[in-house]
């Protein structure tokens, strides 16, 4: 087995002290600040080759011939692989396996992989890629999602990936007041900092080990094994350090390519994308075109919402069928809507494939429904906050899918909390606090401030009957707890939470997190859908409790008392169950102390209650496990002549269930808001006839330190029934309504009826 060096060697991280509820520091913090943490792009192995991918320059073309000869003739090239070398399934995919490992007869998007090369140096590999000759016959690309459904199929599975219809209540009812709007959301990119990368190492007996940055090592393993034509146990996927994900690592990237090259060459193969390839190499957020009609009474109660939503899924399905179902379910917003007609469709085009990005369909419809609510507020002469409070959902209300909310739903509380925060001071002398910043463009007499609010929500956990689970193993060994859980730590801080949970149950000081790989522990599911704290935190909690029980039983046997006479506490202690009885000194200790030197281990799987699919005609069904809500208030300053926007402040009230780690929750909120701000005012993958015009950080702009607003956050803690610790996931909600709030503020400042994000300066003048 080749020794993979993660300089230094990757090992389990010890977690610092602290239990659930504390702002515990993350255990991998020290190695990250020292630059010693091994990201997937930092890995190396003896005899390692470098891999590179050849990608299509055309959005749609037939491949007539591929000539590998010139590449193979370059010294230092070990091998070149194409579709012909894929021994197993030719296609893969998160839901439908509709995406080729390598295109063989047709390419369907700019950037589609056609071949891959392994060579002795990245430069050699690049020269080899440049030397491959592919004879393409371009076909006119299908790039307009509105035409996709009626256009000739560009894929055997057809151009409609999925339609979701929701019919709720009375379709014929109308309101006193009707407000129409058409809204567009451009293609956002996750733009994680750590490019796609990893290392595939052949094991010498036909199998392979893959270290990779990803969101779900087991699902990756299954897809890779299927494509390689290998049984699952011949492919072991190890989590390489992940430099952010935000949904972009749900689909495989380098995985099959690197493994093919490694198996073919017999040597380890490292792949690491440059940034331009990264922009082509992962899915993006679905662009959306939405037409809405809101019906309300004169006094502001929503009567009916009609929505037509088109999501551009791009060339391959990825998770589009789930994204569009989300868009449909949350299309009306977190309001009481007695009647709803929603028609949502995800279509296939020759644009870049779209899939998961933080918010997963809810972001797009939130922009639409919140824009509608502001239009309605203006029409009715009701203040925007008041209109929302009037219609806000609460526990017991019913979604347009017919599902009644049985968990917590503090929509009104979130909104009240958001608007309760103090407003920021007016801009003063500081140049950087004006729109335009150091560009010195601002004339304060021409700067107007605007304030806007928005509320949003989405599901937590997977939906529509997906039988999700997560496994964890906890071993207590001489005062140290070892946790094995396959969670993809992508920066969100699960590694911290895991330690907090274990410490709370076992009372240990030291928790060691074993490296995650598919061979040593079962699936923990995906780091997505804001699910890991609930599912994998839940699994770690269960496993820890099983261990604690074992320890209690052992102690009870030693003491000769029934186990029920001993109590396990929330601080990881064992005490006497009978408060009055004399407590022997062996009792009232931590679980870890009670364990002594005996080793205790337990494996547990956490599942959530089953959900149902949506009815194909009516969209009715108990599809979701839980919901999380958030409200945002944004303050912007706009240079009304130049249209330059400065987002000054975003305040939020977020429904979190329970705060397990205040510092980490703050981090998710601030980070999510920054991404929402980015979508509002600067982020878009610009496409021309399917070609990405801006695959670089030069022209795909994400907020810098100079663009980040002040963030004021209130966490609303109403424990969620059924959730471990009552904690809801916090990753996505801050991203969902922050965009809409910023746009609402821009409208308020300028009076311009903005209906598309990202907002450009030229949209405002």
């Amino acid at each position, binding site marked *: 087995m080749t020794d993979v060096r993660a300089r230094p060697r990757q090992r389990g991280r010890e977690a610092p002290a602290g239990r659930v509820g504390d702002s515990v520091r993350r255990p991998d913090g020290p190695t990250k600040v020292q630059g010693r943490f091994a990201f997937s792009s930092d890995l190396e192995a003896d005899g390692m080759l470098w891999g590179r991918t050849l990608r299509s320059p055309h959005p749609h073309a037939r491949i007539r011939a591929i000539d590998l000869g010139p590449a193979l003739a370059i010294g230092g090239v070990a091998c070149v692989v194409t579709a012909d070398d894929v021994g197993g399934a030719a296609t893969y995919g998160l839901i439908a396996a509709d995406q080729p490992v390598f295109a063989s007869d047709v390419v369907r998007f700019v950037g589609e992989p056609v071949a891959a090369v392994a060579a002795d140096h990245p430069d050699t590999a690049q020269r080899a890629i440049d030397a491959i000759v592919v004879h393409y016959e371009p076909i006119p690309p299908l790039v307009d999602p509105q035409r996709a459904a009626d256009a000739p199929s560009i894929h055997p599975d057809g151009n409609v990936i999925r339609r979701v219809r929701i019919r709720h209540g009375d379709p014929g009812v109308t309101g006193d007041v009707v407000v129409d709007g058409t809204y567009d959301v451009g293609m956002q990119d996750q733009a994680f900092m750590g490019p796609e990368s990893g290392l595939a190492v052949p094991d010498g007996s036909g199998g392979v080990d893959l270290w990779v940055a990803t969101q779900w090592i087991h699902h990756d393993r299954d897809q890779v094994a299927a494509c390689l034509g290998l049984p699952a146990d011949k492919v072991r996927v190890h989590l390489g350090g992940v430099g952010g994900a935000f949904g972009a690592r749900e689909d495989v990237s380098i995985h099959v390519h690197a493994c093919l090259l490694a198996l073919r060459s017999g040597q380890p193969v490292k792949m690491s994308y440059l940034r331009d390839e990264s922009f082509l190499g992962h899915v993006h957020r679905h662009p959306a075109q939405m037409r809405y009609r809101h019906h309300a009474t004169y006094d502001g109660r929503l009567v009916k919402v009609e929505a037509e939503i088109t999501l551009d899924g791009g060339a391959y399905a990825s998770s589009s069928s789930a994204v569009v179902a989300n868009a449909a379910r949350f299309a009306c917003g977190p309001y009481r809507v007695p009647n709803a007609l929603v028609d949502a469709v995800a279509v296939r085009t020759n644009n870049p494939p779209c899939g998961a990005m933080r918010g997963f369909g809810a972001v797009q419809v939130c922009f639409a429904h919140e824009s509608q609510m502001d239009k309605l507020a203006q029409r009715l002469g009701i203040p925007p906050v008041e209109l929302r409070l009037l219609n806000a959902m609460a526990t017991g209300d019913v979604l347009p899918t017919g599902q009644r909310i049985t968990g917590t739903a503090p929509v009104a509380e979130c909104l009240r909390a958001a608007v309760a925060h103090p407003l920021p001071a007016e801009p003063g002398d500081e140049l950087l606090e004006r729109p335009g*910043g150091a*560009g*010195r*463009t601002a004339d304060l007499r021409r700067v107007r401030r605007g304030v806007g609010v928005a509320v949003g929500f989405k599901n937590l956990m997977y939906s529509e009957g997906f039988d999700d689970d997560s496994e964890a193993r906890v071993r207590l060994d001489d005062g140290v707890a070892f946790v094995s859980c396959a969670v993809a730590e992508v920066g969100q801080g699960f590694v911290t939470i895991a330690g907090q949970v274990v410490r709370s149950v076992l009372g240990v000081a030291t928790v060691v997190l074993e490296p995650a790989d598919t061979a040593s522990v079962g699936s923990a599911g995906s780091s997505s859908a804001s699910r890991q704290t609930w599912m994998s935190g839940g699994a770690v909690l269960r496993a820890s409790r099983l261990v604690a029980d074992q320890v209690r039983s052992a102690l009870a046997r030693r003491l000769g008392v029934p186990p029920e006479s001993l109590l396990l506490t929330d601080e990881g202690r064992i005490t006497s169950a009978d408060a009055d009885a004399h407590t022997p000194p062996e009792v009232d200790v931590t679980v870890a102390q009670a364990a002594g030197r005996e080793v205790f281990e337990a494996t547990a799987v956490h599942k959530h209650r089953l959900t149902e699919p949506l009815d194909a005609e009516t969209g009715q069904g108990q599809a979701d496990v839980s919901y999380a809500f958030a409200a945002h208030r944004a303050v912007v300053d706009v240079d009304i002549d*130049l249209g330059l926007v400065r987002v000054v402040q975003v305040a939020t009230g977020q429904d979190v269930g329970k705060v397990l780690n205040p510092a980490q929750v703050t981090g998710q909120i601030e980070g999510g808001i920054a991404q929402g701000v980015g979508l509002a005012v*600067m982020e878009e993958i610009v496409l021309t006839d399917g070609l990405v*015009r801006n695959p670089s950080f030069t022209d795909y702009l994400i907020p810098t330190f*100079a663009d980040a607003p002040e963030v004021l956050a209130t966490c609303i803690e109403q424990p969620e029934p059924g959730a471990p610790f009552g904690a809801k996931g916090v990753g996505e909600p801050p991203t969902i309504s922050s965009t809409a709030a910023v746009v609402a503020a821009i409208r308020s400042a300028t009076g311009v009826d903005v209906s598309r994000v990202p907002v450009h*300066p030229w949209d405002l*003048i």
Partner: protein
Amino acid sequence: MPTLVPRRLSEALDALADDPSLTVLAGGTDVMVGVNYGQRRPAGVLSLRRVPELRGWHVDDDEVVLGSATTYTDLLAPDLARRLPALAAAARTVGSPPIRNTGTIGGNIGTASPAGDTLPVLFAVEAQVEVASAGGTRTVPVSEVVVGPKRTALAAGELVTAVRVPVAAGPQEFLKVGVRNAMVIAIASCALVVDLTRRQVTCALGSVGPVPVRDTAAEMWLRARVDWDGGRLSHQSVVEGFGRRMAAAARPIDDHRAPAAYRRYAIEILARRALERAWCAS
């Protein structure tokens, strides 16, 4: 072929004379992007890192002579910034601190990007560029060096060695429009320079033409409407008139960063604001 790191300007020029195909590397903030992405494969590299004659600056009568290796950070230093305020304002908007520490004014000229941040200022002040080769030196107006988008009139074997910029003799303004507050390529910029001694105003626009755009007719129109003795514009409408003239002079294109119409419109606003501020300052 090794990477050449000469220790004297004469060595650098001789090396360039021997092999004009050498890629000249000063700060590298433009060249290295192409190298990293495999778009540029230099046959050989001539690094100017250790050529002392290119560093530093001095005042020569009413001009500052900037070595071509002067970085954007150097331009922000108080002694230089107060003599060359528009140049300092432009330098502040370039990239980010590490970019400003490395990128050079000679590089900005040599790259000759239509969006090069210092170029509108250099055009507005009619900076003179000192160019050297093994065969000799010449001093050329910057407008005769930067002649097209990413195109200079430098001959094979020539290096920019210095830039002569007049010390500010009145208010100077530089305004730049970008979609983000930092690290952004200009979609429109405007440099306005008032010379109270010579009683003239010059204005150059960036990112709205293949090279920075001036309109001498507009400048003369403006000059005639300045009450130089009283230190004010003859009428408020001069501001609007100047803005319109500069907008008309702009030659923007549509690209993935911004539409031409916005760029032209932004120029009108920038020119007006620059003029208003300059006149409040004077």
